[in-house]
């Protein structure tokens, strides 16, 4: 683990040397040194000005604990009503009011309705789906006061893991992925799906949707593929490298066509998270999944990894938090996947309660460290 990281640093250092980049980043690195040594000059803000959030539905057992932790933002879907479409203003209004009653602000929709295989695979009914998506987006902003939608470009097979109970420290259960275990799995009913078609469909979607998002101020946030491998069961993956994200961002350049900085996935691609946060900045990063991972494959991009506790992974979490602070990130952030802990069933791997409470203590400790560095009181 350590060796990989060191290796990576070494390799990237040597690459920098080879390519002689003094000019590129000197403007970038100096303010960092300054802020780290002398501390922040900004007025102190709780949680470094970031909106701490949990992923939870309106019936989640996490809600009372969220209030006690001071995590006052929800990443939540709409409360489904069998008689109404999920983009119906009544549905959205009811969801907003339900959260208000809980004393928690509804801030993000992750995995929006009406964005599925038709749009991502370019099927016949894609225009209807996109049109509904635009309606959803507008109503969500107008009636729900939600301005972040986190979506992904993984049709058919979404989040994938090959193990849900890998033993971690003290017997905590972690999710893990090994690309080897996916090989030989059959194609889906959609057969081989090419990267070109996914790009084409993504471009079509963005060109239809982003102008509307701009009008209403909806921060679209594309989540990287998880896992960030080349393809699964014949379905290609395209949001799996930093270059591809740059390409995506250029398809329709806009503050409202941004991304979700899922630290785990980008780290497994081989990226240095703090540097990437600084480079993309506040205008591209609309939402953060603050987590860490351990690569187990010995190479990056990773083909085998596990999702560990926040404090024991390969990502420089302090420098990452410093980077969010320096770019002035003030959007929502959630802990994302956490190990299943003592006394918990593993019914929703990655999303059980204790790990989230532990993660909150950790993230808050980091945010406070960054925001209080150099302050006396």
């Amino acid at each position, binding site marked *: 683990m350590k060796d990989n990281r060191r290796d990576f640093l070494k390799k990237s250092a040597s690459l920098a040397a080879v390519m002689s980049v003094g000019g590129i*980043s000197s403007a970038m*690195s100096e303010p960092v040194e300054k802020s780290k040594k002398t501390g922040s000059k900004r007025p102190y803000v709780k949680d470094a000005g970031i909106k701490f959030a949990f992923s939870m539905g309106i019936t989640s057992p996490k809600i009372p*604990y969220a209030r*006690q932790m001071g995590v006052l933002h929800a990443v939540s879907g709409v409360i489904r009503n069998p008689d109404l479409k999920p983009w119906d203003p009544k549905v959205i209004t009811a969801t907003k009011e339900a959260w208000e009653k809980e004393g928690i602000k509804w801030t993000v929709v992750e995995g929006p309705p009406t964005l599925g295989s038709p749009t991502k695979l370019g099927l016949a009914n894609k225009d209807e789906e996109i049109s509904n998506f635009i309606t959803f987006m507008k109503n969500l902003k107008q009636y729900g006061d939600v301005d972040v939608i986190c979506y992904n470009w993984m049709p058919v097979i979404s989040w994938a893991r090959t193990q849900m109970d890998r033993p971690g420290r003290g017997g905590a259960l972690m999710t893990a992925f090994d690309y080897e275990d996916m090989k030989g799995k059959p194609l889906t009913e959609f057969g081989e799906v090419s990267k070109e078609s996914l790009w084409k469909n993504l471009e079509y979607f963005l060109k239809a949707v982003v102008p509307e998002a701009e009008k209403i101020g909806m921060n679209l946030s594309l989540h990287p593929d998880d896992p960030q491998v080349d393809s699964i069961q014949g379905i290609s993956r395209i949001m799996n490298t930093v270059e591809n994200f740059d390409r995506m961002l250029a398809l329709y350049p806009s503050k409202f066509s941004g991304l979700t900085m899922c630290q785990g996935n980008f780290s497994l691609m081989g990226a240095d998270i703090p540097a990437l946060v600084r480079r993309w900045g506040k205008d591209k990063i609309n939402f953060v999944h603050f987590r860490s991972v351990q690569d187990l494959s010995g190479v990056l991009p990773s083909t085998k990894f596990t999702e560990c506790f926040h404090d024991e992974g390969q990502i420089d979490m*302090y420098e990452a938090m410093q980077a969010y602070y320096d770019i002035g990130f003030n959007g929502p952030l959630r802990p994302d996947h956490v190990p299943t802990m003592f006394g918990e069933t593993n019914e929703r791997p990655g999303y059980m309660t204790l790990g989230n*409470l*532990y993660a*909150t203590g950790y993230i808050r400790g980091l945010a406070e460290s960054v925001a209080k560095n150099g302050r006396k009181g």
Partner: protein
Amino acid sequence: MKDNRRDFIRKSASLAAAISVTGLSSCSESGKKSDGNETAKIVEWPVIEGPATPKICVGLGSNATVAAMKQIKQIGVDYVLMGGPPIPWKVEDLKAIMDRFKAEGLTVINMMIGGHPNTIFGREGRDAEIAKIQESLVAAGAAGLAVVEYNFYADRLMEGYYEKKGRGDSGITAFDYAPAKDLPPKPEIGAFTADQLWENITYFLKAVIPVAEKAGVRMALHPNDPPVPISHGSAQIMATFKDWKRLIEIVDSPSNGMTYDCGVSREMGEDPLEVLRYLGSRDRINHMHFRNVTVQEPYVKYEEVFFDVGQVNMFAVMQELIKVGYKLGIYPEHPRGLDYDKEHPGGIGGGYPGGGGYTGQAFNVAYTRAMMQAAQSI
């Protein structure tokens, strides 16, 4: 030099980010060129505890089950503290306890020693108690126990604590001296003056510290908490910063140290950083409590709150700890009362009004770990 190196790494890292690193392995040939710089300090992540860092620890019973030990391991803690056996301690007993924890990857860093009332009160029988404590310290040294903690008060004023509700109806431990101020002496204890207690602790320290020093054991006196001047008619001699300074001068040895508590320091209206620097620069912090408070009136009225809520700048404390080179136990203590622990019995319980258990502790430990990693990264 160091800065240049760090700059260099950062620049290259941002370049790597800029172009992603697919195919970087082809550079491994020239990568060897950077080996010359390997001695420069780069903080490796995950940042872990080492011989030169503080060690996060939590309390467990000496008879804790393996399941309880695993719970502690899950929150990333490798060190524990506990009450020791009755005095005199025997090396084989200590080893048996410590080995049981070791088998689960936990090091016992601190045991609380007790059973010395005659010593505190200066009564007949104190020499026999002191002899047992001396024997215990020798056993501790032989067993490899780094720190022995103890108390020295006539009575602890628990009556002033009461529960308050904090954010989301969590439990807060509040303290008010007023209703407990004039409680009478307990008949079995009586009332002691500060002079008497100072005399008794002096007698004690002169007898035990040389033994501790020789055994390679550090003693840590727990401050009075609550730090009120009088408890049930008896004076308290560990309830001001001046008292603490006086304590460490009685016997001039690193074995004659304290449990530094940034929360208690603030309860007394002191600057926790100043206290830390004073004790730390003299190498007299042998154990430490990490917690936060909101004080209405020093010594008299305050609340033990979430770490991220109180008046102590916890990160400044952590940075200072790293700066003074503190490397013994850091105990994120007094978890807040969270509903999760009430609804999920079987966690590790707490003992204070408004106090909590395992879940609150998990939050505290994670917060402390983050600050420790941050302080090591800067």
